[in-house]
């Protein structure tokens, strides 16, 4: 059972207090988009062994959505940040670069 820290309310809590919401930083494709773009957005997800960016909601707490950068192999949590952004904070990316040299995930590295 993981421990995560909600970046909105600052509470560090057990996984059961949160709800996982799948891959982070998806770009929505709406009406008028191509079938391929929509399919990617709706169905295709990365499943990396290593650095991953996920959505979580502090569902039994403040109710806010946030993102977590995490290693799926070791379960190390690099950091969490509010979901109201299109990309992870630079300081967090620096931490990951330092801990996992040469990493990449989607458009980030």
């Amino acid at each position, binding site marked *: *059972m*993981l*421990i*995560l820290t909600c970046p909105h309310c600052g509470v560090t809590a*057990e*996984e059961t207090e949160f709800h996982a*919401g799948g891959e982070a930083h998806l770009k*929505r*494709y*709406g*009406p*008028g*988009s191509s*079938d391929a773009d*929509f399919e990617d957005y*709706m169905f295709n997800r990365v499943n990396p062994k290593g650095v991953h960016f996920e*959505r979580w*909601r502090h*569902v039994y707490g403040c*109710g*806010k*959505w946030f993102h977590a950068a995490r*290693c799926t192999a*070791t*379960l*190390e*949590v690099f950091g969490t940040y509010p*979901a*109201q952004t299109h990309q992870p904070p630079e300081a967090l990316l620096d931490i990951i670069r330092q*801990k996992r040299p040469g990493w990449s995930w989607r458009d980030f590295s």
Partner: protein
Amino acid sequence: MSTRLATGGRLLNRGAAYSFSFNGASFRGYEGDTLASALLANDQLLMGRSFKYHRPRGPVASGAEEPNALVGLGEGATFEPNQRATTTELFDGLKARSQNHWPSLDFDVGVVNNSLSRFLPAGFYYKTFIAPRPFWKHLYEPIIRHSAGLGAAPKDLDEDRYEHFYAFCDVLVIGGGIAGLTAALAAGEAGARVILMEQTSHWGGRTPVDGGTIGGVAAQAHIDALVSKLEALPNVTMRLRCMGSGVYDHGYALGYERLTDHAPRNIGPRHRLWRIRAARIVTATGAIERPLAFAGNDVPGVMLASALRDYVVNYAVSPGDRVVVVTNNDDAYRTALAVKAAGLTVPAIIDARPNGGGVLAAEAEAAGISVRKGMGIAKVEGGKRVTGAAICAQAGEGAVLETIPCDAIAMSGGWSPVVHLWSHCGGKLLWDDATAMFRPDPARPPLGADGQGYVLTAGSASGPMGLAEVLADAVEVGAQAVTGAGFTAAAGDVLPVDIAAESALEPVWMMPQGAEYKLRAKAWLDFQNDVKVSDVQLAAREGYESVEHTKRYTTLGMATDQGKLSNINGLAVLSQALNAPIPQVGTTTFRPPYTPISFGAIAGAARGDVFQPLRRTPIHEWLDSHGADWEPVGQWRRPFCFPKAGESRHAAVDREVKATRASLGLLDASTLGKILVKGPDAGRFMDMLYTNMMSTLKPGRCRYGLMCNENGFLMDDGVVVRLDEDTFLCHTTTGGAEHIHAHMEEWLQTEWWDWKVYTANVTEQYAQIAVVGPKARKLLEKLGGQGVSGEDFPFMTMKDLTLGGIAVRAFRISFSGELSYEIAVPASKGLALWEAIWDAGQEFGITPYGTEALHVLRAEKGFIMIGDETDGTVIPQDLGLHWAISKKKEDYIGKRAQARSFMDNPNRWSLVGLETVDGSVLPEGALAVAEGDNANGQRNTQGRVTSTYHSPTLGRGIAMGLVLHGPDRMGEVLDFADGKGGFIKAKIVDQVFFDKDGDKQNV
């Protein structure tokens, strides 16, 4: 025979004698005994039968690793199967019975398997019970179920109580032996919050049994001093009878405390599950001795050397007058010396090492014990009890040189550290050739959220070693753990130790090393599951190269003991058979719990009424006292109907429907979801949430809306009310309130976070009462409602009213096709309003109705129900709801998905009404068959029933369903399978069965 020695027994209190029963016979034992030691003291060596061959078995171990001595404990509401006699503390009045035999433990008919054992090889079940197929269900499965299985499931409800504890600490120490105590003291003295748990009823582990001095005092005295120091520290919590059950992500661990198993008359919960978060976890779980694989090593009387020593030293049990010791290491010599010291005879020590042992061997020889170097046991003599050991050269194939008469055999194949807890959460192992064991690799521990290792091993759990090394390791690991948890550790001093040094062991995986087939087929690796050396070798020949596959194929290491004794020997045999090194073959996965824990402990207090929260509306008690027949709807309870005395459910529903259509019905609609959406961008947001155009709704007006997920599928529906320019009230289904609110928040927070909108789930803040039927308006007028005429308060509008002196918000909406008002009040006023309506409605014959009447009323009108007409694969277009899908909007959640080719396909099944030709009611979910069969030989289908009821209004069965090209096939008759091999004919009709023009509703 086995018996009680006149003196000794360090754990016994001979002042307290207990009586207990085993298979109905009465025995005597002492306080401090385990069930196993007490049975042995009474010459009851036979304690169980094995799983596959029903071979007679006695205890082979003295602790948690015991595979054989499993018993059923207690009776009736306290009965529990598969309890290890070796870990069951004796109490006065204990009742136990043996398992897995028929008709009796001593004479088991099933043992016939034994003579047929060559016909029951590895994978026997997979190979045999394949064809013919029908035999499986009617012949094979019943026979296997009857003859296999361990113990019997309890039949009565468990009468004991269980509880959960949540605890947080800096350092959790699992294991209260010398290493655990030492590490806990190092952590405790640094000021950290420490929890120390020990699975047995005493501190100190097996150090006092093995002897030696620490800091110049006897081991026991040193342990007593350690315990006193720990008890004096307020920051240290110590629990006996508490097993570290599992280690999980990020420092989470479970402890399983057995509070009253040893004293059932004590008040309080039986088991307690500790749910612990620790910054660091120290596993000081010790080591388990390995058996040796020689023919007949399962005959009762053959035990692990350490276990036999425990029985002699701890419980003053003589396992027999003559004990032969067989070993590949020095430690087993301690058993020979202990047996000798107890006044019993050791005819020989069989040491497989050509050069024998060191200091301890010399001590044994000085004591006059004959040591046979380079020898092994070819075969054990005896059936239900050891009568002799046939010895041979370890290097040979098993030619018997001599048979030594004896009553018991103590075997030792070396020690394996208990790495389970280290491994539960990903701690890696390395193979140590010198000591022939897998031990934790400190460089690859399980990692916490911060990327640091959070599990450390101390003492023998790091890899078996001498007492001096164990103490040094424990002091260092205790300091490491407490430093990792953020404290400053004091420099720990390691006390001097005096104990005999041990010389190296030599790995022995089979005895003798070249044993012929006949011997290998009687050399047990897994006692509980009857897996022999020959089975693992057969699996390897048949291509099972992975140890995980071999486990499933042979059942090696399965069931209640999970291979604590068998795994290393089994995989060593496998690696030899595969001609691959042991580390390459690897181990099977270690999973929690370490030993089985009770279901009661897992459930804790969450049983019966407190299993989950029950949600009640403000009107719940009234409904209950007026005959509500409840049904669960999510966590709510809603009345299904209100049957009168002697009335069937069906008759009650008919009566409620008719009364509502004829005069006045009353429904508690408080469970419906109510979500406020408010803000300058609320209209824009509502247009994205619903398929309809909601931003054009005028304040004070209502509109029925559909909500889809991004995949295009219909997920919820309900009436939206615009309360004012920037406020919408969204009604959802009863089951949908929470997840629809979550859906709104998800989109608001993660996609449109710059929109100025707030949402609030106010479902429980309001009671909502539906007043339904031709007399509904008269009732409102009678209660003082002003301006409720058809012109002043038209259909699909909202109005603030005062009814019976209570300020209410009324919505003129209808889910029944009748003149209908849903009246909302703050929850605190719900019951008062309901009672006012009830009293005023008496003259109209007001009738409370339940969910089933609600369903019938809506089905007669052809209204859809989320969960009936929808199942997560249905889009609004399938339901003919095109009118509720805005063509003007550029976007809404689900719009893009509904443009995909599969969604746009004219061959999707569409909603129609269905009318049985004979007036009967179609079965729920019935399929309409089409011509021909599919690839699986099943009939093709062309539709299915989604809702089906008896309509009291029409006096016949009515249904709705999804049918291929349904709306274009009006009047066509389809065949619906009745589930019993026959068919029911039903005609495709309009789904609105009653009052198509809405005359009743629009008055």
